[in-house]
């Protein structure tokens, strides 16, 4: 195989664009996962199911109630986050700071949510109708050939980027964010400084689920919607977070970028199985050599 | 008190050094422990005492230097191989199996004498039964000897701190070592308990087992050891009988100094 023939500039540009939009979704999912781990020390094996809920919420709000897409996506996130506070009260809070119990207990929660969704919404796969069908074409002067950019993808990218920016502002520039960072650093010290951890936990949980649900909504629109769709987002979150370092926020960003770009690049050039295999192999290798990830702290 | 240097040395350390990054934790240490000797290692916190033990006990590998035990080079041996040679240590903390009875703790210490090899262990033979019976009597003797008999069936985590420390020693002794390394055996103990431990260690020596005792309590060390090594910044500051060492001005200045008056009061 001759790579220089395969990898034309226009293909490269296309990979970059697709990679960015995939990465942004992965980062959103992984941020929620890493937040829950970093602050509450729970490994949220039910993470994919929250993404699934986001997908179904978008299906209702946009597909059925016909709300404007730009409103429907954040609203879907809000609805799921608000609803999930019930689970925070009834399930999650018993697993805070208990990593091992949380792994198995939340795998239990994952099956509960998955099969409840099956009972509620049935087994069939659904399609969230696309929001925009136009495609932008540009870049002919630069690459000699047009780059194709579906508006759909552009809007999704915009939404996830906005959410990421909002999250950044929240974490870095608000009191809530400060408290979360303090709790992530050392819960006991944070408590001693007068931070009410129960409140911080609940806030962090809501933020994490909000981001996950938005990502899940977008994910569900790109691929498909079904009670079983949570598998993939969970795996992605897992891989991203382990790549970047469990609990590290910049690590989730870096890991998401690496995974998104790598996946698009490899699957375009070599097919999806190679890409899957490399991402799995890479993550297992990282876990073995550097279990705390690229940007995490060794214990 | 005379150092018993008559027998061949059991443990010899040659030029032992360990650096962590840029920190030189132990530098060029030379030492020998004779059969039947009790050697004290003393020094202020951060002097490299525990690092020295860890180097000798196989917890980490030295940057340079050699450790010879009974004439064999055992440098960098993992702890289980050292134990098989007869060199066993205790720990400052996590010294016992909390969820088990005192007796079971000792059985776990006696692994070397119960274990016939991986696959033979799966076949229940008369020999295995005999081994178990022998170890049980050995443990009875050990518990009697250390004054733990009354606690034999109690869970270790329910025992008072001092008894747990003694049990830590019992676990080490159950391996029937030729040399035990005791890492701060009296840390946090009352004066009475300290005296008890001192007597116990003397009796251990009486049974033909050498000991290296690490502590920063000079009174305890000097009342117990044949020789004392004073560490300071990872280097040997002085070595000799407790009397000789205490007389050296460098030791008084560096370690005993003005803190001595206070250190005496717990």
């Amino acid at each position, binding site marked *: 195989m001759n790579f220089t023939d395969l990898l034309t500039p226009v293909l490269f540009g296309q990979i970059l664009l697709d990679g960015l939009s995939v990465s942004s979704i992965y980062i959103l999912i992984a941020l929620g996962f890493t937040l829950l781990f970093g602050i509450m020390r729970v490994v949220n094996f039910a993470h994919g199911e929250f993404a699934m809920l986001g997908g179904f919420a978008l299906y209702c709000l946009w597909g059925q109630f016909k709300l404007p897409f730009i409103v429907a996506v954040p609203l879907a996130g809000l609805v799921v986050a608000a609803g999930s506070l019930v689970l925070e009260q009834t399930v999650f809070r018993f697993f805070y700071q208990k990593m091992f119990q949380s792994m*198995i207990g939340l795998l239990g929660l994952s099956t509960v949510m998955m099969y409840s969704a099956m009972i509620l919404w049935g087994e069939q796969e659904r399609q969230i109708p696309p929001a925009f069908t136009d495609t932008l074409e540009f870049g002919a002067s630069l690459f000699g050939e047009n780059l194709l950019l579906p508006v759909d993808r552009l809007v999704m990218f915009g939404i996830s980027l906005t959410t990421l920016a909002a999250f950044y502002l929240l974490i870095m520039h608000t009191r809530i964010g400060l408290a979360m960072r303090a709790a992530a650093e050392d819960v006991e010290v944070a408590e001693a400084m007068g931070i009410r951890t129960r409140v911080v936990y609940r806030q962090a949980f809501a933020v994490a689920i909000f981001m996950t649900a938005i990502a899940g909504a977008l994910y569900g629109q790109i691929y498909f919607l079904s009670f079983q769709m949570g598998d993939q987002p969970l795996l992605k979150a897992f891989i991203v977070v382990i790549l970047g370092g469990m609990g590290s926020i910049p690590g989730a960003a870096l890991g998401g970028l690496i995974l998104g770009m790598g996946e698009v690049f490899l699957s375009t050039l070599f097919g999806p199985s190679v890409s899957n295999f490399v991402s799995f192999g890479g993550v297992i290798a990282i876990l073995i050599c550097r279990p705390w990830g690229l940007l995490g702290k060794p214990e | 008190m005379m150092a018993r240097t008559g027998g061949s040395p059991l443990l010899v350390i040659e030029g032992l050094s360990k650096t962590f990054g840029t920190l030189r934790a132990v530098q060029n240490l030379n030492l020998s422990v004779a059969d039947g000797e009790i050697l004290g290692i003393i020094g202020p916190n951060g002097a490299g005492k525990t690092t020295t033990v860890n180097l000798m006990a196989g917890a980490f590998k030295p940057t340079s230097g050699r450790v010879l035990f009974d004439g064999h080079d055992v440098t960098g041996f993992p702890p289980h191989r050292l134990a098989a040679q007869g060199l066993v240590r205790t720990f400052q903390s996590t010294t016992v199996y909390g969820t088990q009875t005192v007796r079971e703790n000792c059985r776990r210490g006696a692994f070397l004498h119960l274990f016939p090899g991986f696959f033979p262990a799966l076949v229940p033979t008369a020999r295995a039964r005999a081994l178990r019976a022998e170890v049980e009597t050995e443990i009875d003797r050990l518990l009697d000897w250390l004054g733990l008999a009354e606690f034999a069936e109690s869970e270790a985590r329910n025992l008072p701190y001092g008894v747990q420390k003694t049990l830590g020693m019992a676990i080490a002794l159950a391996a029937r070592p030729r040399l035990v390394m005791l890492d701060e055996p009296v840390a946090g103990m009352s004066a009475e308990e300290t005296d008890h431990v001192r007597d116990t260690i003397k009796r251990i020596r009486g049974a033909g087992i050498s000991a290296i005792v690490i502590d920063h309590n000079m009174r305890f060390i000097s009342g117990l050891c044949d020789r004392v090594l004073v560490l300071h910044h990872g280097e040997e500051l002085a070595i000799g009988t407790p009397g000789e060492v205490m007389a050296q001005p460098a030791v008084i200045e560096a370690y005993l100094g003005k803190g001595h008056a206070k250190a005496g009061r717990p």
Partner: protein
Amino acid sequence: MKPRSPPVLLLAGGLAGVLFLVLWPLAWRSDFILYIATLVLQFSIGACSLQLIIRTGHISLSHAAFAGIGGYASVLLVKSAGWPWHFALIGAILAPAAFAALIGPVLLRLSGKYFVLVTFLFGELMRFVATDWQGLTGGSNGIFEIPKPYPAMRDPLNYYWLSLGFSVVCVGLCVRIMRSEIGRAMDAMRESEKLTECAGVPAFRIKVLIFVIACGLAGVQGSLNAHMNNVITPGNFGPLESLNLVVMNVIGGMTNMGGALLGTVFLVALPELLRGYVEWQRVIYGVILIVVMAFLPGGLVELWGRLRGLVTGEAVRGTAVVTDET
């Protein structure tokens, strides 16, 4: 911990139990119950061998993947290579064991929680390989029309006896290991590895050996199961299947082979009896898992202890294996 029960009593009880298991189908034959019982016996091998790994302090979420490797090995050796089943079974033991020997020395160096994560990913990877390597594994549809080990095994009763035989041997081996000095060393190293090593226990070597043995035993389950179902699919590989094996142990308190057997009966028989309500059954399963992990991480054994504690007024401390200290 209570003192070990005397071997004679254990042996007598075990023999009586096995005798009962051999004879009951002769007195009362129900093919449905027989099918469930056969499944339970097969899974008891996976659950008990997994417990060996757990008792060294590592919770593996890829044990079903190793059973799957054994299953595929056995099926391929019989169907493609034309081996008789008893030779294929040796392959079904050696293949996962060899694989475990390859990756075990690397994985077992990880601390508890990272081991869980890696094995989880490993299970996914195995399932992915099984789906993708279509030439060998038949892809996501799996391999069909797997012959029975021997023609006589078409009778479910004979297959039941075959499974019983292997279950007795494999579970017996697990029990034997745990009751030997190796078992004592394993329990000790789970509590404090450095203390155990100082007693002369080659902890790491024992961990790897146990991992290899346990994965080899899992292959027996894989083979027996595949040849009974006539079909094997990548679904047999997934982390959820592995989780199931972990949960069988969780229910039994994780440090007790009897508990693992109890958990196996519970988790295999319950779903089969509730057939037709698959969704509800999974929901109930999940709820039980949440409740047990949140309130009773020591499983039924802890529940028993607490109930007894209520009666005797004695406070019982948790003996959970699955804690953050592991």
